[in-house]
C-alpha cells in the first residue's frame, strides 16, 4: 500500500524525485524469469548452433565461423531473401497502415450500422492462420477459385504460381488478417480524443478533412508509433500464412527470411545455416525496434489529453 501511495504522490507532485520510483523489481521477477527461460536461453542456443554443423539426426559438431562465411558470402539466396523481406515489410506497411487508420477512425464514429460493420471487419482476427491459408488457397485456385467463378477474362488465374504477382497476393492476404487488429488500436486511440477539440474546430469552421488532418492524426501519433512498430516487426518475422499458402514457391518468390530459415532448418536439415539466418533476423528485428523507439521519441512519451 505504501508503495502505491508514494507512487501516486510522486507522480502527481514529484515530491522526492531522487528516490527510485514504482514497484520493486521483485514484482517483475516472474516475467523476467519467463522471458529469460523462453526467449534468452533459446536465443543463446541458436547463437551456439550457428557455429555448428548439425543435420538434426546426428550430433552437432563445431565448425567455427564456417556457417557464417557460407551464408553471408557463398549463398546468393541470403541476399535475395533479405531483399524479398524488405519488399514484404515495406509493402505490408504501405498496405496495412492507411487502411487500418481509416477503418479505425470510421469504427470510432457514430454512423449508422457502424457496430454491425465493425463486427464484420473484426472477423479475420478470430480465424486461425492455417484455416485462412487453406481458404485462400481454394479461393485462389485457377480452376475452382474466384478467377473461375468471375466472368472477367483479365483476372489472372495463377495467383499463387506466378512469381510476378505472388508477393502482392501475400501482402494482401496477410494484410487482410492483420488490418482488423490495427484498426482496433486506432479505434481505441480515436475514442480517447476529447470531443471538445472537435467541437471547437467545428465552431472555428473546420471541415471533416481538416479535422482529420489537424486533430485526429496528431492526436493519434503515439498510436501510430505503436501500430507501426507492431506492423514492421510483425511482418519482418511473419511466417504462417506464407508457409501454408506457398511454402516459398514459385521460384522462391516469397521465401522471406523467416521462411528461408524454416526451410533451411527443417526441410533441408541444415540447422547450422538456419541458425545463422535466425541470428541475422534477430539482429535486424532488434535494430529496427530500437531505431523506431528512438526516432519516434517514445521514451519521452507524454500524455497530451486535455486535463492531464
Amino acid at each position, binding site marked *: 500500500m505504501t508503495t502505491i501511495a508514494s507512487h501516486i504522490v510522486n507522480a502527481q507532485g514529484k515530491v522526492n524525485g531522487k528516490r527510485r520510483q514504482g514497484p520493486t523489481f521483485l514484482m517483475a521477477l516472474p516475467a523476467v524469469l519467463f522471458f529469460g527461460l523462453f526467449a534468452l536461453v533459446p536465443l543463446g542456443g541458436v547463437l551456439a548452433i550457428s557455429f555448428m554443423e548439425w*543435420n538434426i*539426426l546426428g550430433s552437432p559438431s563445431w565448425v567455427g565461423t564456417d556457417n557464417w562465411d557460407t551464408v553471408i558470402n557463398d549463398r546468393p539466396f541470403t541476399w535475395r531473401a533479405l531483399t524479398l523481406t524488405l519488399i514484404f515489410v515495406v509493402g505490408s506497411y504501405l498496405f496495412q497502415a492507411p487502411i487500418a487508420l481509416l477503418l479505425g477512425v470510421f469504427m470510432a464514429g457514430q454512423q449508422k450500422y457502424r457496430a454491425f460493420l465493425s463486427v464484420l471487419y473484426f472477423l479475420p482476427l478470430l480465424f486461425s492462420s492455417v484455416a485462412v491459408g487453406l481458404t485462400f488457397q481454394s479461393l485462389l485456385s*485457377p480452376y475452382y477459385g474466384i478467377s473461375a467463378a468471375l466472368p472477367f477474362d483479365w483476372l489472372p488465374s495463377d495467383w499463387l504460381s506466378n512469381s510476378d504477382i505472388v508477393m502482392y497476393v501475400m501482402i494482401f492476404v496477410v494484410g487482410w488478417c492483420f488490418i482488423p487488429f490495427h484498426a482496433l488500436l486506432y479505434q481505441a486511440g480515436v475514442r480517447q480524443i476529447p470531443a471538445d477539440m472537435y467541437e471547437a474546430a467545428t465552431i472555428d469552421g473546420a471541415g471533416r478533412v481538416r479535422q482529420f488532418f489537424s486533430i485526429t492524426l496528431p492526436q493519434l501519433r503515439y498510436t501510430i508509433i505503436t501500430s507501426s512498430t507492431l506492423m514492421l516487426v510483425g511482418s519482418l518475422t511473419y511466417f504462417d500464412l506464407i508457409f501454408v499458402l506457398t511454402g516459398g*514457391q514459385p521460384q522462391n518468390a516469397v521465401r522471406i527470411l523467416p521462411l528461408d530459415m524454416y526451410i533451411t532448418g527443417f526441410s533441408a536439415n541444415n540447422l547450422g545455416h538456419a541458425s545463422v539466418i535466425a541470428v541475422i533476423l534477430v539482429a535486424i528485428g532488434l535494430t529496427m525496434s530500437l531505431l523506431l523507439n528512438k526516432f519516434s521519441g517514445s521514451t519521452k512519451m507524454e500524455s497530451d489529453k486535455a486535463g492531464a
Partner: protein
Amino acid sequence: MPRTLTLRAGTAGIASFSLFALAACGGGDEEASAWILTGGGWPAIEEDLERFNEDREAEIDVEALENDAYKQQIRTAVGSGDAPTMIMSWTGGALLEYVEQDRIIPLDGNTGELDDRVYESVWQNGVVDDSVYAVPLNDVQPVVMYYNQEVLDEHDLSLPETWSDVEDIIDALGDVEDVDAFSLAGGSVWPAFMWLAYLTDRHGGEEVFQAVVEGEEGAWDHESIIWALETMQDLGDAGFIRDYNAVDAGQNEDAQLLADGRAAFLLQGSWVYATINQDFPEFADSGNFGFTEFPVLEEGAGDPSNIVGNPANFWSVSADATEQEQEVAFDYISEHLYNDQAVDEMLEAGSLPPLNDIGDRIEGSEAEEFLSFADELVGSANHFQLSWDQAISPSEEQAFGDNVAAILQGNMTPQEFVDSMNSQ
C-alpha cells in the same frame, strides 16, 4: 442461484479438463505412441490401432499428421530423442540414416509370421545389413495412369500404349479448349517426381537412378535424366493441364480435374483410387473412371514392366522408447498387423496389402477390378522403384524438390538441374 452453480461447475470442469489435457501431453511416459498420416487409408489404420488397444488393454497413443508436416516433425522428434515408439517411414534414405544413427532397433525375431506373408520385393525395403529394421504396415502404392473414358470417347481417343500414342493424344487435344491431356498438381511439386521417375526409367532403365542412389560421382548427369526433364518441359508447353503449377494435390484438385473432365489422364499413386471413390463418387460410379499402365517408350532401354511408387509405408521401433513401450510395439507388429479385419478393410477400400496369402479374398471384393490390376502390375514388375524423393538422402531432398519445381516453372534447364543435383 442454479445458474451461477452451473456456471461454476462448468468453469471448474473446463479448468480440470485443461489440466488433464496438459498432464496428458506432458506425461505419456508409460504409453507407447505412433504417428500416422491423414487421409487415404490412414483413418482405417488408426481404427485398427484402437482395436488393438481395446483387445490388449494396451495403450498406443495415435497422432495423425498431414504428410508434409509429418516429414518435417518426425525428423526433429527422432533427432531429439522424443520419437514416438513406432516410427513410420517410406524406407529409403531416411531409414538408412535412422539405422546409421542408432535411432531404431532391429526387429528380427519380433515380426511373427510377417516375413513369410509379405512379398519379398516389398519386405526387402525394410532390411538393412541383413537385419529387419522396418516392416510394411499398409498397401502397395504403385503409381498408375488414371483416365476419364468420357473425355476419351468425346475426342475419339484410345488408351496410349506407346509414347507416340501419347504425342498423338496431346496433338489431338491441342486445339480443344478447356481439356488437356494430363492433370498435374505441379503446385505440390511431388506429383511431378512420378513423371520424372517413369520417364527416366522408360528411357534408360532402372540402373540410371540406381547409380544416383548409390552415390556414384556425377550420376545425375545422364542422358536419360536429361531426356526426362526435357520431356517434362515439353509437356509443360503442351500436355500438362493449363496452370498446372497452381494446382494443389493436398486438396485433391488434380483428381478433381480428371473427374470434371478437364483432363483426360492423371498420373498418380494408387491411393488416388480411394480418394476418387470417396470424394467424387459420381465420377467413380459413372463407369468412366479407368486406370492403366504408364506407356512404353518405343526405343527406350527400360523394361516396360517396371513400376514406380511406394512399396508401402513401414513401421520401425524407436531406440529411445522404454522396454515396455517397445514390447507393446512388438506385440502389435507380430500379432496384430495385417489381421483379417484390417486386411478386409484395406481390400474394401481398393488398397492392396503386399501379402501373398490374400488372392482368394480379392475375388468378389468391391474393388476387385482395381485390386487385380494392381496385383498384376506389382506381381509382374521387373523392378519397383521407390519414389525418388524418398530414395535419395534426406539432405538432398529439399534441393531435389526445389529443382523439380524450377523445371516445372521453366526456370532451369535440364543441364542446370543435373549440375545442381551433382553438386549436392
